[in-house]
């Protein structure tokens, strides 16, 4: 199963990417997924990462079938 990669908010606009699927290949961590999905770009400071919808650090290990997401700091609702 491939890895699903998602980008949200400003990060979607900056990378020009929304969602894609990548074979896991030699990717071992969330940071590796970022590099593979963005063509080796550096991950911007304050990027938040989620693995299967839970917040994780970039060094979190990934496995086949994972959903990995990248997004900026959240900005909540109102007020």
């Amino acid at each position, binding site marked *: 199963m491939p890895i699903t990669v*998602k980008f*949200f*908010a*400003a990060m979607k606009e900056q990378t020009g990417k929304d969602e894609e699927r990548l074979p896991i290949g030699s990717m071992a961590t969330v940071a590796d997924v970022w590099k593979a999905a963005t063509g080796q770009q550096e991950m911007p400071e304050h990027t938040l990462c*989620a693995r299967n*919808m839970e*917040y994780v650090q970039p060094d979190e290990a990934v496995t086949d079938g994972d959903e990995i*997401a990248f*997004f*900026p*700091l*959240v*900005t*909540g*609702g*109102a*007020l």
Partner: protein
Amino acid sequence: MKIMLAEQPFEPWQLVAEHQRLLDAGGQYGAATVFVGSMRDFNLGDQVQSMFLEHYPGMTERHLEKIAQQAEQQWPLLEVLICHRVGQINPADAIVVTAVWSAHRGEAFEACRYLIEELKHRAPFWKKEQTADGPRWVAENTPAE
């Protein structure tokens, strides 16, 4: 516990009233505290015409549920309701409702405040504001004031 995401405008007080009617707990809750966050037409010194609230479907619901569960573990609550708008939002529209029912007022206030603070800091929502100068992403969440 009830968690909702709303794609369309909703009337927050009616939502709370209807939810309370469904509670089989009349006479048990002495206290209900409700917070409603609405869209302001002004932010960071600029007039804001509208806003798009992006979210992460699936993760958002999961984190709202987790926040509600943590409140229920921390205080003796009878019920928790969270409803959050997503998508295109206009000034004066309700964006978020957090509501708590409990026996006493102390826990109702504390838990309701906890819900909105956690929600702002942990739930995956991003605001893009439409101003006269064009669209802009709001950079990070505002501190509690």
